[in-house]
Each structure stands twice: as C-alpha cells, then as structure tokens.
C-alpha cells in the first residue's frame, strides 16, 4: 500500500459525503421552491411531502455518517496544507455538521408540531417523540429557514476551498475525496 491510497478518504466516507451533499442541495432547492407554489399548483401538497420524506432519509444517512466518522478517522493532512488552512477547514467542517444537524432537528420539529407523525413516502410513519415548546412550528421554522441559508453560505466557502486546492494549489485535497 503506498502513501497515496492510505491518505485517501475511506470509501464509506466518500460515498456518504457525496450522498449527503446531493441530498442537502436537493432539499434546499426543493424547500425554497415549494414555498413559492400557489395553492392550486399540483405540487402544493406533494412537494412538502417529498421534502419531509427525503429529509428523513437524510437523517438516517447523517446518523450513519457521524457514527462512522468516530470509527474511521479522516486521513492525515497533506504536507502542503498550511496551519491556517487546516484551522479554517476545521471550523467550516464542524459548522457544516452542526448546521445540518440543526436543520434536520428543526425540520422534524416543524413537521411534528401538531403531534402527528411524519408519513415517509406514504409507506411508513416516523412517530412524534417530543413536543418541545409552544408555537413550535414558528420557532423551529424560523431556525430551519435561517440555518438553511447560512449552511449554504458555508457550503459556498467549503467549495471555494476545495476548488482552490484543486486549481490553484494543485494538490490532492479534492481528489482524495473523490
């Protein structure tokens, strides 16, 4: 085994990273779009149902991803990574994890605010676990919306970093996540 393969992200990390990125982009676009639909749009009922169903799927993906993160530590930093890059990356990565977790929890709280379970793809139900606070849908909704926009800003930074490493520094940072 050469240095190259050792310093790649594990296959499970790579799959889970891109799978969750795909879901997060999809849910963001779906979330913004569904709020613009007028009452007579055929998607008016379906879009939120899909948003919640895919959201629940993402929750399970993220649980697996976070658990695996503790068992398979990330590869060591490249020699060319400067300390400030390592620090910024660390802050942004944890902000991304935190943001996603916050959005997932508040999404669940909006959808269960009236004490009814979430129907996933019309096949099974996710039960209501807690009634957290009064006017739950408003408070959770506010956090959900703003956290989603903030997350996208951080994703932008994150992508800019990845592209900088790839095109300007011409190092393996992006390649070892692919």
């Amino acid at each position, binding site marked *: 085994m050469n240095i190259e393969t050792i310093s790649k992200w594990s296959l499970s990390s790579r799959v889970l990273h891109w799978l969750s990125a795909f879901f997060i982009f999809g849910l963001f676009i779906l979330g913004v779009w569904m709020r613009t639909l*007028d*009452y*007579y749009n055929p998607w008016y009922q379906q879009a939120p149902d899909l948003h919640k169903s895919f959201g629940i799927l993402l929750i399970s993906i993220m649980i697996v991803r976070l658990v695996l993160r503790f068992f398979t530590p990330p590869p060591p930093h490249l020699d060319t990574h400067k300390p400030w890059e390592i620090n910024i990356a660390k802050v942004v990565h944890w902000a991304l994890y935190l943001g996603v977790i916050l959005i997932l929890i508040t999404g669940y709280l909006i959808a*269960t*605010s009236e004490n009814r379970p979430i129907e996933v793809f019309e096949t099974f139900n996710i039960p209501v676990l807690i009634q957290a606070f009064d006017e739950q*849908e*408003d408070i959770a*909704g506010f956090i959900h919306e703003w956290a989603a926009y903030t997350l996208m800003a951080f994703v932008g930074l994150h992508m800019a970093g990845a592209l900088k490493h790839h095109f300007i520094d011409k190092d393996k940072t992006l390649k070892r996540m692919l």
Partner: protein
Amino acid sequence: MKIKLRTALAAIALTLSSSLWAGEQYKIDTKGMHAAIEFKIKHLGISWLKGNFNDFSGEFNFDEKNPAASNVSVSINTASLDSNHGERDKHLRGDDFLDVKTFPKAIFKSTKVVSTGNGEAKIHGDLTLHGVTRNIVIDAKQIGAGNDPWGGFRRGFEGSTTISLHDFNINFNLGPASKEVILNLYVEGIRK
C-alpha cells in the same frame, strides 16, 4: 366648606360616571375560558376549514333596559391562531396572510348596538385586522344570564359576522370559493 365642596364634586362625578356607565360591566371569562373565537372558510368550495384564536380578551357593557347603550371590545392575539395543522398555522401567521409579527393584535370595538328584539342585536363596530380598520356588523344573540354556582353573575352571547379577506388586504389566492371568512364568537361575561 372645603369638605362640602369636595363631596359635592364627588357626587357630581359619581352621577356623571354612572350615567355614562348605565349598564353592567362584564369581563369576558378567558381565565376559565368560557369563550371561543372561531373562524371558518370554504375549502375549495367542497367543505369548511375551521380554526380558532386561542388567546384573546375583552369586555362588554350591557344595559338591559337600553340595549343601544351597550358596547363591547375584544382584543385578539393573532399569533394564537390554531387550525390544528402546524405547517398551515405557520403559513397563516406568515406574511401571506395575517403577518402576525407586524400585526400582533386584531381589535374589535363596537360603535353602535341596534337591538332587533328577542335578545338579538346588530353590533356595529370597527375591526382592525392586518393593519386595516373596517366597519363590520356582528349578528349577536343572548344565550342566557344568571348566577353561577361560585358567587358571580354571568351573561353569555354568541355572535357571527362575515368578512372579506380582500377588504383586509389579505390577497393570497385560495380560490373563488374562499374569499370570505366567517367569524363566530361565543362569549361568557362575568359581571364586575
């Protein structure tokens, strides 16, 4: 002399105020919640969508001999809207509808009460909702009055009115059958 003047003034003030407040003052029993404000609107012209405002307060003045001298005022906390569906409530509180952040209160103040006999009356008044004030008429009817078992005296009414959403500058398109909202009030007042 000084004392006499003061009692005279007090007597005048008393007669004046008692003629202004000829009737009986009642506070709507929102503590024990023997009161409800309900709204309903046609859903697609197929059925009704019903909901409530859970948090409000109000009082009324009732003059049995001269109903026209009665008056009523109610203040509703618009964020307390509840249609038993979280995402819909969030939408109805948002700026497509009531915009409760900008307009946290809806207020009704009667301007004129016209008795129509049989314990029924038309209550004219100003309703302020969504920042717009309009004159509306509530069809009201006394349900009953009497002593309660806990030493108080109570009087109950029901009232109903229909308002157009457009009049109050709420223009989200819910379809042709859903342009008007019926408001039903059930209030029980405790005499002060």
